[in-house]
């Protein structure tokens, strides 16, 4: 199995973690690390790679592109969806810049 996921940056204190959960995407909070979850599900040889820098760059490009095509996007999806998406992206970008959110890739075998 291999997957990418966004998660609260490891090592946050409880207050920071709550802030990460608030600013992050839905379902960002986890009670256990993904490594622990994989092992408990019977996976082994867990590999991890930090993609936070790439995530930050991609999210910034999403925001730039959203503004670049704003008129056409508003026409396509409506103002509500347009603004919801832009707000969500801006919140997560701020959270990454504050060190609260990270993105990791995981690979494991079973």
């Amino acid at each position: 199995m291999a997957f990418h996921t966004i998660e609260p940056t490891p090592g946050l204190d409880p207050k920071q973690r709550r802030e990460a959960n608030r600013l992050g995407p839905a379902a960002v909070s986890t009670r256990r690390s993904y490594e622990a979850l994989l092992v408990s599900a019977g996976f082994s040889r867990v590999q991890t790679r930090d993609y936070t820098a790439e995530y930050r760059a991609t999210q910034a490009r999403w925001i730039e592109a959203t503004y670049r095509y704003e008129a056409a996007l508003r026409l396509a999806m409506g103002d509500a969806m347009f603004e919801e998406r832009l707000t969500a992206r801006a919140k997560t970008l701020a959270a990454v810049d504050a060190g609260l959110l990270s993105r990791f890739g995981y690979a494991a075998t079973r």
Partner: protein
Amino acid sequence: MRNVERFRDRYAVSGDPALLAAEFDALGTDYSANGYTTPLQAEEIGDWLALGEEDLLLDVGAGCGWPGLYLAKRHGCAVISLEPVPEGMPALRARASVDGCGEQAWPVVADAVAIPLRPKSVDAIVHADVLC
């Protein structure tokens, strides 16, 4: 808004030229994806999983096909694209045909909490920004 409703609304506008243009500028893809897995990261997944032509890949939360269909096209493997929102299926099927892997790609409407496959029936599993 529940996730299913959110994605239903998203799939209703998938394929729009402006959305595809924004996706290409952000991700470098044109699969109606809106996550963060770039082609390079998808390639790394393919390498991690050591995909080959004999493999059957399960893409959980496949959306409109990224990255599962891309990996199937790149590595020649078969792919089951699992997606809980049926409104994504037309785009997924169309993209499988465009990518030339329609014969080895099977879209399935199902939730990841109840995958309708026998245990050990796939060789590899991928999901991108599905858990979060």
